């Protein structure tokens, strides 16, 4: 199963980069989100895969009695997901503004300085 996940991580990175390199701002954001997903999955995978044993201590116990999934990558990924959302929503609104002001979705038309706006 890990091999399949690794392939998916590679696909997400490749697809994310490819979209990041497009001139359209919309596609750029898609790329950003794909890369984010890929990175999250990567970190998660490195914590090893454990089925059906979330890192939650059972009621009445003080420590784990069974094996449990690594909590540290989970905490990291949780943070990353939330921060990623902040970035995505900001970027989405930003390109909307850019489109409103400049009437274009093409990054190459944004190479000039502020004064022309």
């Amino acid at each position, binding site marked *: *199963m*890990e*091999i*399949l996940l690794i392939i*998916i*991580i*590679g*696909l*997400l*990175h*490749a*697809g994310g*980069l*490819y979209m*990041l*390199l*497009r*001139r359209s701002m*919309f*596609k750029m954001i*898609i790329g950003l*989100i*794909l890369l984010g*997903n*890929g990175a999250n999955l990567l970190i*998660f995978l*490195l914590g*090893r*895969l454990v089925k059906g*044993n*979330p*890192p*939650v201590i059972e009621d009445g116990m*003080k*420590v784990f009695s069974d094996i*449990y999934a*690594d*909590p*540290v990558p*989970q*905490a990291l990924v*949780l*943070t990353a*997901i*939330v*921060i990623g*959302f*902040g970035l995505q*929503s*900001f970027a*989405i*609104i930003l390109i*909307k*503004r850019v*489109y409103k*002001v400049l009437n274009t*979705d093409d*990054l*190459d038309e944004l190479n000039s300085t502020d004064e022309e*706006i």
Partner: protein
Amino acid sequence: MLIAVILGFIFALLVPLFSKFLKNAIPFLYSALPLSLFIYFLQFLGEIKFRGHILFRFEWVPSMGIDLSFRLDGLSLLFALMITGIGFLVFAYTAYYLKGHQYLDRFYGYLSMFMASMLGVVLSDNLMSMFIFWELTSISSYFLIGFNNTDPASRKSALTALSITGFGGLVMLSGIILLQATGGSYSFTELLNSSEIIKNSTSYAWIITLFFVGAFTKSAQFPFHFWLPGAMKAPTPVSTYLHSATMVKAGIYLLARFTPLLGDTFWWNSTLITIGAVTMVYAAIHSVLRVDLKSILAYSTISALGILVFLIGIGTEKALLAAGIFILAHALYKAALFLITGIIDHETGSRDVSKLSGLKQVMMPVAVAGFIAALSSAGVPLLLGFISKEVMYEATSQFGDWAILLTVLAVLTKILLLVAGFWAGIKPFVGKLPLEFGEAKLPSPLLWIPPLLLGVLSLGFGTFPSLITESLIQPVFSSISGSDTIVQLKLWHGFNLVLMLSILTLLAGGILYWLWKPSNDLFQKTVQFEVVSPQNIIENGAKSFGSFAGLWTGFFQNGYLRNYVITILAFLTLLMAYRLFGEVDIYIDWDQISNVSHYEIIVVVLMIISIFFAISTNSRTTAIVALGVVGFANCLFFLIYSAPDLAMTQFSIDTLTVLLFMLVLVKLPKNKQYSSKGIKVRDALLSMMFGSLIAILTLEVFEEPSSSEVSKYFADNAYLLAKGRNVVNVILVDYRGFDTMIETVVLVIAAAGVFSLMKLDLNPSKKDL
């Protein structure tokens, strides 16, 4: 001693104060400075004669081995006396030469700054502080050459001089550091003890190469010589002081100073002899092709510096003695010639040697000074130049197999320099006085006494060499050569080869002077060779380097963000791929891989299909939906592999993103195809390489045994310390609570940004947007 060195800096700093309250007294005040320093240094003559050298130590940056130690020995004393003595004459001369100049006060400030830096260079025992003073001379020279700052040519020459000497200085700095690394000290006196270790070390070749570049740039050796003629844009007192008597000799000083430490090896000698010989002959030929008095003097100065390098390169006791005497003799006669040129320029407004003549009739004392200087430069008996020339011929004619070649070169240079000297010191004064210069008159004694005084010294030392033999030349010789041989200077050596060579030089020079008249035509003919001159080559090199830098920057900093990404990632990918395939053994450890169940397969297939759709679709809605599916598939992975919190977060966030996307972006225009097919293929290739690289790296990292001490600590203590059962939550709100708080702040900032971007109206006149 410290005060003596930095007094000039203090005076330079006080210029604004003085010019406000004592404007008229500045020339006197500032001329008193070098005079008193000259007297101060004179009183060391006796002590140096007996003790060899005196050390003065002042701490500066002891932790780095840098201090302000000063070493006074024969060589540095000779230079200190020249700097302050000629300095005094120049300071006094300037009082009249630039009388009433708007920036006279500034000029004196620069001059004192220069004098202090130059004293620092020749007196420093610590090589680091010597380097600092060395650079300060370049900087003050920059100000002085560009003193007429309204003249573009003057500014350009100043910049050229600064870049060449500054460059050399930096190269020398690396030499100093290397020397310190090899010899273990920045102190010259301490390094002297480890001379053999340094000479036998592997970095010796580097050290001398780096020092040579420093010395050759400063002392205008071929091919770095061209800044010196350019520097003649400076007012004549500056040319006298910096560019003939003192600063350009700093390189010579450096070589002479390091002769006992680094000298007397094959590379040292052969390099110096070659460069010195090329410079002296090349510049001597140039000097007799010029018509501008200052150009003639500039080239003859370069040639003289070449002679000094050549002599130090020969390195025998006789040659070093000749160098020592020649430093003094040259300073005396060349400074006089420059000062005389300044007077002629000042009084007639012309420096064209082909037009000047007959000035003897109006300015006799100047003419006398000119004759003495020219004769000393020619090496006529009874003048100091004669003695230096005799010793030099002795040195060359005794130099083994190469004696004949070296002697011929020396004689040739001397003959040409004789002509150049006569042009500068005799030609303007003899013959008929042309009408156009009829109004020239004898200037203030302040102008003509300095060159006359220098002439008197040439004459006095030349006639009675015993005046300086024991007191000055002997210590100079000892500190250059490090030997104890007793120096004897005599006027009469008997009829021998050296005397024949002297007579030959004088005769040939006299005949050449008689036959060869300075002419502008001849100079014009040389202009066509400028293309291959080192100046042109180096300037073109600098220019093409500039345009290369422009192209380079334009290529990499092209303003397209994605091109930066491509460059960085392509480089990274190729580099990592090279390492991965070259040295890493890629394998799959099946023991660590878990089995695949059917529901997992479904999620994986779902994921792959939706990634494919998100990338390839042209419809915006499809892309957003596909993205949503990717997110939800991710969510399922989290759910399957025991991360319910992640699954929940991912689920809600993904829903929000899709909604936001839909709400905001649906109104955008249709997706357009911007890129051509080729670009897409290129990007796709790079992306696939990058993706594979990440996949391989993930595999490699995954196979590595991981340490889970941190996780174990968190899990073991989640309930015991933090009273929480969900370890992930405990980590977020307890162990890493601060991180989470800051993260919340980031989210708030993002929300504020989103909100203000939605409300922001950049163009109030177009409300309908």
